[in-house]
């Protein structure tokens, strides 16, 4: 959602869909190969990804309890 929002906001778009599915990978790759606009998209795509990874990691840190030493087995 975030990715598409950024995509729509910052990068130019072209016409409606044709009858052949261009596939997500194929379309983004062509945009990336397209120079500045592609680079912008790349940054934004990665920004979304990094942000999500960051949020996940950030949330995960306080959830981890501090390690206690294991009591010796009798």
């Amino acid at each position: 959602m975030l990715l598409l929002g950024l995509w729509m906001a910052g990068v130019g778009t072209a016409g409606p869909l044709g009858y052949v599915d261009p596939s997500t990978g194929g379309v983004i790759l062509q945009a990336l190969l397209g120079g500045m606009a592609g680079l912008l998209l790349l940054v934004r795509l990665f920004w979304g990804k990094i942000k999500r990874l960051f949020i996940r990691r950030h949330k995960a840190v306080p959830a981890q309890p501090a390690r206690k030493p294991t009591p010796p087995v009798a």
Partner: protein
Amino acid sequence: MPAVRDPASFRDPDGSVYLVGERVIRAFLPEGARKWAILKASGLLEDLLQRGLVLAYEEKALKDIPELQEEAPGVCAIVEHPRLPFLSYCYEWPFSMLKDAGVCTLEVAERALERGFILKDATPYNIQFLGARPVLIDLASLEPYREGEPWRAYHQFCCLFLNPLLLEATTGVPFQPWLRGALGGLRPTDLAPLLPWRWRMRPFVFTHVVAQAWLERHFASDVAQEGHRPLPRVEREQVLRLLRSLRRGLERLRPRKPAGLWARYQEECHYHPEAQRAKEAFVEGALQSLRPRVVWDLGCNIGHYSLLAARYADLVVGMDSDIQAVDLFYQRVREKARNVLPLVMDLLDPSPNRGWAEEERRGLAQRGPADLVLCLALVHHLAIQGNLPFGHLVRWLARVGRAVVVEFVPKEDPRAHNLLRWREDVFPWYTQGAFETALEECFTIRERFALPHSGRVLYTAIRRGL
């Protein structure tokens, strides 16, 4: 004669192909007709025709084909194509043929884009070989380019041309079984994990396979959740650069496997020179007397007898299960023979009917019968290696051919004997007499000839009931 829509022609909303008796008609619906009119006026088609990149066509008036109006009332424009005597599919092509078909597709796309048109789909099912020359048969694939549009067919091109070729070039695994198993081809996400690491790091492979697969895996679900979206803007120059880069990359690819056993067969198999001459004379005699239009040469190897038949027939379809032998054959005829079509075909497992309703791509037997079938030095392979009874073989030959030139190789022949080296001889029925009896069930033997210095026997036989 009623107009029948070609079972493979239903995806494109701009039009379809109809068969009216022996005639092949491409019909355009209103939007397709509008695009067709722009294409015609551009001069692009003349350029592509001159370069031999597209199938010939002739414009027709709607009133010329009244049958079509009943079947497809919305049609606005029609063209007629010459009927091709044999359709082949990408899973029957060796490496060099798929590569040439891919280069042909890219060349058309590039020339089209230079003149303001785009190839809206890029599939090998839109390419046919006229003899050994690939041509684009789907003229409706060309439509006016809208500025800023990426190449929508890029992913399809990768799945059906680039990735299968890369699979074979990088791993040595033949692509034909994959294409036969998946009409949509080999997706980047499927190919990427199969690639050796040193190949993944090459810029061309990294861009078109590894990066594309990564993007597909990570972003496809995001986009799917959003429903329809306009495509990102890509400049025309960039699309042209992409097409040129793909073409350069494709042209550099080579199959990894060395020449196989059967590719060396012609050199290694030593017929006595007199037997060789006699066999050639016999086959030539049959060709002269039968004057076939279409010949199938089963077990063609590198095409010695196919080329002989090509002197007399309009089209010779050579088939062999050895992919390297067929590739070698194709390279021999690529530049010179215009009426020879080499194909990869395992007769013990021939191409079946495939696709929607099992009608889209036709099986081998549905594409016959040929006027003459050459079945030379093959019976012992099918019968002994494939455990195929003579009766089965002969009935199938009668289905696919009106006449046959067939060679019987006795069990004592070194070649047949070789096949029994590691296995029990469970073929007491494998005798010349039993073969003739089976042959006469479906054929009338017109000529019988024992090759000198060999126990082999050649037959010319005509299918009964003709």
